[in-house]
Structure formats: structure tokens, C-alpha cells
């Protein structure tokens, strides 16, 4: 079977419909009509939405972050925490964390996948941005930030620089010019993994993390 043929036949049938192009819709107007909030209000909304979605939210500052994070790791007895290059680059933070847990670097292709399934207690990631409207943390997955850390271990801890909190996904895409290109994977995370597939009863920890811990880092 020739691939070219299927492609050309499908496109040929679509072209034969001779459909007149409609004007390009602009979503800007819709989002412009909505209320824009100042940063402090956006952060409150983000924290509230995340908490309502069963994420555990901790509010801290960059100087207090290492201690706050160590406390979380110790309280939850997370003995092995997987990290990517982005977290490893924060030398001072890693030095402190190593007092309370073993940090497992995930940097080599496919090398740690089995370990992530079998013996890692938590994945620690940075975030790219956050979205107030939906209470979402945005992960920008590339060579610095692996995809599985926020998915396979039973606990996902994510650090959010609250200055990067946007009103909506649209505002984020627009202001950061996402249309010009995206990394391998971008993920919005808004709660621990969940399902309501059995008799509409909500249950957490379906396939991904059972706990989502969000460290909101605020510097005034």
C-alpha cells in the first residue's frame, strides 16, 4: 500500500470540497474582556485552587526554601528523591537536601526508568510558570528537566517561583510567545493523579503521583 496515495487521496477529497477559508478567529478579545488580577491576587488564587484540588501547598521564601523542603522530605520519610539537571544546578539547595535524603540524578537516557518505578520515593522538579485561573503548575520538559520525575514516583514535589504566576494559559502562551516553538514536552499539572472511572467516585493516585506538593517561593 502506498502511503503517498492515501495522503494524496485524503487531501484531494478535502480540496475537492472547495471550502472558502473563514477569517482567522482571535482569542485575544475574549481574554481581554476578563478581569486581570495583580500578582498577589493571582498567587492567592493559585494557592487556593491547588489546595482545593488536593495538592499540598507550602509557602516559603527563597532563603527559607532549603529548610522548608528538608522538613517536608523528613516528615514524609522520603529517603530517595530523583532530580534532573535543573535541580542539580542549585548546588546550595542540593547540599542541604543531601542531609535528609539521597538525591538520585536522572540525566542519562533511559538509565533510571526502572529505579523510578521501583525505589524512588519522590521526584523533585522546578516549574516554568504557574496559572492562577486553573491552579496549574507548568513543567517545561527538556534536557534540564526529565518528564518522568513528575509522573512515576508516588510523590511529586515542585518548586514554583510565584513571580511567574499568570492569569490564564492564554496569557502565558501569549506573553512568552509559545507559538514560535515548544520543547519536547510541556505539561500542566493541577492536582495529584486521580480518576472517577468507578461509579463516579473520586480516587487519588490512579497512575501518577498520589501526592502533589507545591512549594510556592515568594520573595517580597
Amino acid at each position, binding site marked *: *500500500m502506498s*502511503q503517498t496515495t*492515501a495522503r494524496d487521496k*485524503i*487531501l484531494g*477529497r*478535502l480540496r*475537492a*470540497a472547495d*471550502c*472558502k*477559508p*473563514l*477569517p*482567522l*478567529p482571535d*482569542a*485575544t478579545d*475574549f*481574554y481581554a474582556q476578563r478581569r486581570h488580577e495583580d500578582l498577589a491576587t493571582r498567587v492567592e488564587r493559585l494557592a487556593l485552587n491547588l489546595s482545593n484540588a488536593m495538592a499540598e501547598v507550602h509557602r516559603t521564601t527563597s532563603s527559607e526554601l532549603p529548610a522548608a523542603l528538608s522538613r517536608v522530605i523528613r516528615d514524609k520519610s522520603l529517603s530517595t528523591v530523583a532530580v*534532573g539537571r535543573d535541580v542539580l544546578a542549585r548546588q546550595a539547595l542540593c547540599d542541604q537536601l543531601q542531609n535528609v535524603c539521597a538525591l538520585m540524578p*536522572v540525566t542519562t*537516557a*533511559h538509565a533510571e526508568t526502572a529505579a523510578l518505578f521501583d525505589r524512588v520515593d519522590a521526584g523533585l522538579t522546578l516549574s516554568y510558570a504557574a496559572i492562577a*485561573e486553573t*491552579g*496549574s503548575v507548568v513543567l517545561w*520538559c*527538556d534536557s534540564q528537566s*526529565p*518528564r*518522568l520525575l513528575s*509522573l512515576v514516583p508516588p510523590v511529586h514535589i515542585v518548586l514554583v517561583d510565584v513571580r511567574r504566576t499568570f492569569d*490564564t494559559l*492564554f496569557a502565558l*502562551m501569549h506573553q512568552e510567545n*509559545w*507559538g514560535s*516553538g*515548544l520543547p*519536547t*514536552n*510541556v*505539561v*500542566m*499539572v*493541577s492536582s*495529584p*493523579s486521580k*480518576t472517577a*472511572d*468507578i*461509579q*463516579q*467516585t473520586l480516587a487519588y*493516585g*490512579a*497512575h*501518577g*503521583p498520589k501526592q502533589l506538593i507545591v512549594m510556592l517561593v515568594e520573595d517580597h
Partner: protein
Amino acid sequence: MSQPLNFVPVAEFRERARSVVANPDLQKSLRGAMDFLQAKRSAQFPDDAEFQRLRDLGEAIRQYSLSRLPELLEVLEAKLTENGIQVHWAETPEQANTIFIDIAQRHNARSVIKGKSMVSEEVELNHALQEAGIDALESDMGEYIVQLADEKPSHIIMPAIHKTKVEIAELFAERIPGVDYTDSVDELIQIGRKVLREKFAAADIGVSGVNFMVAETGTLCLVENEGNGRMSTTVPRVHVAITGIEKVVEKLAHVPPLLSLLTRSATGQAVTTYVNMISSPRKVDEADGPDAVHLILLDNGRTQAYADEQLRSTLQCIRCGACMNHCPVYTRIGGHAYGTTYPGPIGKIISPHLLGLDSTYGLATASTLCGACAEVCPVRIPIPDLLIRLRTEAYSNPATASEAVRGAGSAYSSVAMALWHAWAATYRYPALYRLFTWCASRFRFLTPGKQGGWTVNHRAMQPARRRFRDQLKDRA
């Protein structure tokens, strides 16, 4: 494994529907599930003016994307190829399965783990893989449950919505080795999690559907709550996505409004747990993700819907399932009665293009045209108008039927058509009408006592002893 279900004899549709209506347990759980989903959706749209503006935008984006569909597909293909994602085109389910099996064989794949994909159901991928000796396991909890039960999804968003937790508890205890009976939902989910985790780690290929494809960036957007979609698209070394050609939008900025309409309409969530945007396979210095990503674009009758200006709006659909959640027919008969991959109102208008009107015309008539579906549709598909159009196509004379829909004219009956012509003439010509009503009242004793469905729970209808016009004359 059950046989493919993609032929739907009309008579069996009625039988299936009747048996569901006669089952009080199923009636109760369907009603409860629909009430739950309706309430959750409605809570997401407290401001109707905002909802209407968002719908305007969603409808405009989908119509615009369709108006430029061939160009956008070419831009998408070029951009995906540039990003390292391999694009394949399939006109039919058979071609899609052949492409898939070919990819699997090139990678020496033995096992496939699947995220939720209705298009993979549409092409009966699991069946084709099984015949090719490849294991395919569903990983969405609902899909996993229906696969364990040798069934098909009865809802496009909540595949196991027809099952109670007790039924699922019994199923798990019976079919999963080493599992004791428990009807705790949390425990059941943890059992599923444990079984499927082992499979994610071992699978050679991960399969997914796609919610939106973005032409300008070459991005596949997937929406989910469980994390199995991310697992299927990240853990195995090969990811194969399969979707319909209509799912493309031009701009990334077109995604947020459609995403908001989709999750709020589908499950009443402001957003799902995960929104997953994939733009390339693993790059050389990245630690995880598949080394190869393929996309299979399926036609399977979509170009037929596209060719007709009115029927084209069928392709605006973003597969939220709100139409079925609000459909009085779906709520009574459930998803399996339809026998098609897509049940409910959207299934009634898309299935004729996928399967032909000859096997599906009974679906278009199984509607009261109440319009609830059109009222909730986030992209304003005029479903009742399309149902009327499909009925007209099905019942038209095959000799003169249009070529818009395969199988047009298949419900045609010359006797029925003659009766309709007689009826029309009676109402067009006053003399004929007077004669008819005179005969009807004079020979009223000849009216049959059994009048089909009507007399199941009504008294038989009979013309009046004296015609209305005669009664009026008496009063003059």
C-alpha cells in the same frame, strides 16, 4: 475477546435498547451517572454570558480550522516531520492497523500499552494487534475495566459508566490473579495501578489518542486525569498517536479556549489533572521520553462529511461527551445499545459517515429532536438539524438520492413514500381533505384497536363521530 461490533442491524439496536430499558438497576445507574455529570458541568458555567462568548469563540475556531483543513494538515505534517515526529495517513481502519502493525514489527514490539483513544476503538486496533500476535493492554482505568470484561466502552469519556462498583469488584476478583474481592473504590484503583505499573515499565510501544493537534508548532495535546496518558506517551521507547484528520487547529492560541470548553463540558473540571503537549521524540541529551513518535491520521469517512457544507459541522466536535450526558435517549438506553464506537447524539451523526447510512439509519430516527444536545454542545454543532438531514438522506428514493452520504436511500420504502404523498395531497387539496375526513368519521368503526407503540400504554385513537367543521356549522 469479542468480535468486532461495527455493524449495527437496526432490529438489534431496538432489541438492545429494549433490554436496557427493562433493566431497573441499569436505569438507576445511568440516571445517577448522567445527573452527576450534568450537575458538574453546569457548576462550571455559572456565567451564561461568558459561556456564550466562549462558545462563539470555540465554534469560530473549529469552523475556521475546518475551512482550511487541507492546508493545515500539510503545515502540521511539515512541522511534525521537522520536529522528528513521523506522520502516516490512513483512509480506512484497515490501513491504519496495517501502518500500526508495520511500525510494531519494525521495532520488534511484542506488547503495547494504550492510553485512552476512541479512534483506536474506531479502527478496532486491539483486535488487529491480537491477530498479529501483539498484546494490547488498556491503561485508562475505565478502559482497563471494559477490556477485562470483554466489553467495549459505553461512553467516550467514562468508558465503564454502565458498571457499578460491585460489578467491578466481582470482575477484578474473578479476572485478576491473586486479587480478593473488595468493593472499596480506593482499593480497586490501587489494584489497577499495581497491575498496570508493571506493564508500563515493560511495554514496547505506547499508544495514545490526541485531543488537539497544533499546526504552527507541530504539537500533540492530550488531556487526562489519571496519568496513564503521560505514562503511555513517555515510558515506552516508541509512542504511536492515532487520531482523526479533523482534530487540527492552526495556532497554539486556539488551544486554551477549546481546552476550557472541553474539560468543563466533559467532566465539569476547570482543567484536567494533566494537559500534556508533545512536540518531539526524546532529544539526544534528554533523560526520558520515547525515541520515536509516530502519528497516524485517519480519514474513515470524515472526508465524506467534509464534502457537504451542512454535514461538515459534524467535524467541529471536540469529543467532550456533553451531548450524550444530556440526551434523554442515551440516559435510557446507555452506550452499548447503539453498537457503534461513538454512542449518543454525536454517534448518531458521525457513525453514518464511518459505517454507511445503510447500517446506521435507525440511529438517526431514535431521537425526539428535543435539542438538549445542541443546547450544551460547546462548539454549537446543530445536531437536530443534522439528524433531520440524515433521515431525509436515508428515506429518499435511491434512484434520485444525493451522493452526500454512503448508503443514502437505504431506508426507502415505496409504500411508505406513497402514503406520505397521499397525506401531503390530502392536506394540499381542500376537496380531498373534506372527502378524507368525511370517510374517516363515517368509517371510524374500522380503526384498528392495536396501533403499534401507541396502544402499549394508551387507548387506541379513533376519529371523532362528527368532524370539527360539522360541529362548527351546528354552532353557527
